[in-house]
């Protein structure tokens, strides 16, 4: 009976085996691409509050993007994009881009180093951690790494950073959970075949630990070089990217899509674009729609749009989502040098065919800023860890309790990957704090009132459908219209 029915029933794709592996079948091949915008991106000139243009102009007249130049978004007449971002405009209009407004965390820090660390380690600003949020996830999913890797269960790198250094976001307790590759074509040749392995004796103390670490990195580079070459050879870019060197982000994403297409099972890719620390001269001397920041946003937009197009042509669009982040936004007021100093909240982008809502939160309220005088700051609407929560829990399928552990506590969903808008607390229907998506539900959305919540309806509302696990309270003769 060894080769009989009993064994067949336990093939890898069986429900039983999947549940033993604690992953769902749909989530095993999912990929996350993290795009780091190094320096603190000026979100207020990237995502434009069309509904508050006079206040916007007052805050930053010397760098303001003219309203007429803003790129319009389908079904959203209050928000526009910087004129350099035509690629992301199309992506938004296709339902593949989610703008998450005013992302930050309580007691924000304005040091590049500390703020970057907070984003990458996913801690409260009063705490520190030695591991990154993505690294913790990978370490939990692939215990023991790097000892015993690559192996038959995971023959590919867990994470890849395009470049020469690996980011704090990928740190596990024993070091980086990822590897760095600058060029998949030359990597194999550079690494070469592994030679004989020296005896494992180690001297004491830090020197011994460093030797052990270096030997491990040597083994990994040899171990992974073949798999990476195989994927790089098998993968094809089907979109037309700019010539190498023109757009460094596009160059990196081009490698990523090729490796995914080539069958690499790597879960997380980390790429970056630098230059966002625009204290000075962020716009051109004569044309505010041009200049250093416009160039960066153009690269970001073109890079993501080409990458998404490539994935679609490769037929692997549904496997991949991406997110952008920067250590902080910039001051709402500009300074005298046509630049902006370090600030607080700014939008994140989440992109891919898997996103379910085009906006999370609302435009920042420019008449309700923190700070004084000419040092006004944009307030937080969405804690960045709520986005991480949805990526870990819903995209990778880590499960809620595991996700809470990885993020050190529970953060409410923003429904990034669920078409259902849910209540997060009792409150008014029109209050953005009532809803997971940080705004009132749109007429084309499904809504769930969660158990224990009472939502007060003070006007008639239209929805796709309503799941009532809590209560609705009507403050007058209002209706809920369901379009189905």
């Amino acid at each position, binding site marked *: 009976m060894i080769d009989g029915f009993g064994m067949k029933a336990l093939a890898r794709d069986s429900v039983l085996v999947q549940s033993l592996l604690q992953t769902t079948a749909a989530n095993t091949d999912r990929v996350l691409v993290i795009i780091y915008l190094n320096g603190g991106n000026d979100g207020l000139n990237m995502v434009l509050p069309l509904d508050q243009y006079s206040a916007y102009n007052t805050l930053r007249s010397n760098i303001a993007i003219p309203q007429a130049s803003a790129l319009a978004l389908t079904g959203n007449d209050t928000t526009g994009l910087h004129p350099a971002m035509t690629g992301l405009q199309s992506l938004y209009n296709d339902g593949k881009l989610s703008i998450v407004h005013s992302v930050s965390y309580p007691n924000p820090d304005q040091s590049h180093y500390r703020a970057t660390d907070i984003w990458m380690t996913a801690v409260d600003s009063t705490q520190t951690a030695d591991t990154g949020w993505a690294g913790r996830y990978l370490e939990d999913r692939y215990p023991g790494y790097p000892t015993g890797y690559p192996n038959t269960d995971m023959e590919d790198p867990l994470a890849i950073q395009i470049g020469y250094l690996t980011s704090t976001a990928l*740190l596990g307790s024993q070091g980086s959970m990822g590897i760095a590759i600058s060029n998949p074509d030359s990597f194999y040749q550079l690494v070469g075949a592994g030679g004989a392995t020296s005896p494992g*004796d180690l001297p004491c103390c830090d020197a011994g630990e*460093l030797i052990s670490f270096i030997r491990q990195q040597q083994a990994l580079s040899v171990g992974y070089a073949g798999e990476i070459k195989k994927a790089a050879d098998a993968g094809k870019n089907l979109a037309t990217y700019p010539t190498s060197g023109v757009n460094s982000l596009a160059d990196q994403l081009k490698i990523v899509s090729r490796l995914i297409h080539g069958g690499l099972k790597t879960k997380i890719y980390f790429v970056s674009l630098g230059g966002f620390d625009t204290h000075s001269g962020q716009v051109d001397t004569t044309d505010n729609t041009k200049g250093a920041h416009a160039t960066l946003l153009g690269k970001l937009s073109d890079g993501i749009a080409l990458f998404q197009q490539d994935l679609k042509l490769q037929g692997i669009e549904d496997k991949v989502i991406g997110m952008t982040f920067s250590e902080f936004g910039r001051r709402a*007021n500009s300074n005298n040098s046509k630049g902006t100093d370090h600030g607080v909240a700014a939008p994140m982008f989440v992109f891919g065919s898997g996103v379910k809502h085009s906006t999370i939160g609302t435009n920042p309220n420019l008449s309700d800023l923190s700070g004084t005088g000419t040092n006004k700051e944009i307030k937080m609407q969405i804690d960045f860890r709520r986005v991480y929560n949805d990526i870990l829990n819903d995209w990778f399928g880590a499960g809620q309790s595991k996700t809470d552990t990885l993020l050190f506590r529970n953060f409410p969903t923003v429904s990034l990957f669920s078409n259902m808008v849910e209540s997060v607390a009792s409150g008014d229907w029109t209050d953005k704090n009532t809803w997971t998506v940080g705004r009132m539900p749109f007429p084309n959305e499904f809504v769930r009132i969660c158990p224990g919540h009472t939502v007060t309806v003070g006007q008639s509302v239209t929805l796709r459908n309503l799941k009532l696990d809590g209560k609705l309270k009507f403050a007058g003769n209002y209706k809920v219209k369901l379009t189905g």
Partner: protein
Amino acid sequence: MPYLDTYTQPLTAKTAAHLLRRATFGPTQTEITGFTGKTAAQAVQLLIQNANVSPSPPIDLDSTKATAGQTYLEKAFNGDRNFDFGTYIKWWWYGIMADQSNKPALLEKLTLFWQNHFVTTREVVDDYRFVWRYFQLLRTNALGNFRTLVTGISKDPAMLRFLNGNENEKGKPNENYARELQELFTVGAFDFAGNKNYTEDDVKAAARALTGWKYTNYWVNGSTTFDTTFTATKHDTDAKVFSAKYNSTTIPARTTAPAGFANTGEADLSDLITMLLNHPETPKFICRKLYRWYVNPNVTQEIETNVIVPLAQFFAGSSNNYAIQPVIVKLLTSQIFFDTANIGAIIKSPLELVIGSLKFFDQPVPPMATNYAAYKKLFGDFAHWRMRDMQMDVIDQPTVFGYEPYYQTGYSRIWMNTTTIALRSDFTDAFIWRWLVVDANYYGTGVPYKMGIDVLAWATSLQTNFSDVTGTPSITCVDVLEAFTKNMFATDLFQSQKDFLIDTIMMQGIPRTSWINEWNNYRTTPTNTNRKNAVTYRLQNLMKYMLRMAEYQLC
């Protein structure tokens, strides 16, 4: 353990090499021998005295230009050559670091520390004269007084440009420099326990105190001078009030310069820096960074209490008053510095690997003035790009924080990953294959200068009475290994590793006695190519493997 007490034992080869590896970019064998038997205090005095304080300035290294070999820094600004001339400053510096006169000095490594502390970059500053003045400020004051250094750097044209100080004006200040001055240059963002050392309002107040500074003649073709200027009308004359983190210090409102100051900006700057240097965290922040640079990136609570705090008290104390040299001497002659646990406790930076290898294997520095083509080939075309690929481009850090391995979790481990390890092996392999011809006719000798190690000549030098094959016994595998590994690694090899290197790498599994036969065959007829290749192959395999060992990456 008596942490900062002076280490009094005479230096052995091992401790001398440790001192040289940390205080310079790496030793030569001669330097190690020279320091052996000296006390740490004597050795460190030499490391200070030996500095070449006035090297001849950089020259144009492009042999296709009419100005090749000529100095350029004293001449009018030439925008067409801006990139080259800025880059040649780096290449010039490598030559001083790699100096083979066997007079080891600590000035260059310490200057690099300050350059990585007060970061500006050639790429952003983008005027080679500014870069040079900034570099000179750091190098001249590297062992001087920290107050002088911070004051000078705050008005330095390159720094004014790099952190937008020149655009910091009354009314709407640009906070960039004011923030980094506190976070990165003096007090640091947090104390050891993780508490914030200053507030956001302190950043804004400091920015106001720093308003009004500018520079002249930036990128002006044909200009022969440039300088820092102060524009009183752009300076904020109101009082600046700081938080309790600075004991609620107030820099008073000033419309005229007080006695002893050229202008109100100087007076505000002086008050500001006094306030910053009076912050108890400032000396600790600097001493912690020096400890990580010279001793061990891992600062435990024990080290904080017993090394950082007392060293900081000494640094800022009234008798020392922020003089740098006594702190460097104290640290490099301390018992904690020579503690066995700290030997090999840092991974070599790309400079330590590249410059250190050139030094350790006695690669001559071609004379820059008379043989600039060879000089450029070694330090520019080769070494510079290798170090850059390994993520260390001097005076071109990726951010104002400096190189990641000096501040980020993981510290020196960050230098090593799957890609950079491969690049390091590729670099050390070049010492074996010797494909880099630095000069086809070195010194007109008719002999080419090929970078690398002549392993055969080295082994031959170990053999007494080379031609007397029957009368004088052959050198053994063990002799070769002992010579090749002498002072090469920071840590001691285990016997199992030595056996592995001989039996598996050098002899490839055949008996050690075969070496005697092969070597004697070669001694008998050294002109026989097959016999020569047979031994050369084994020696190359051995040295190549040793240079690829994790142990070679430790500093």
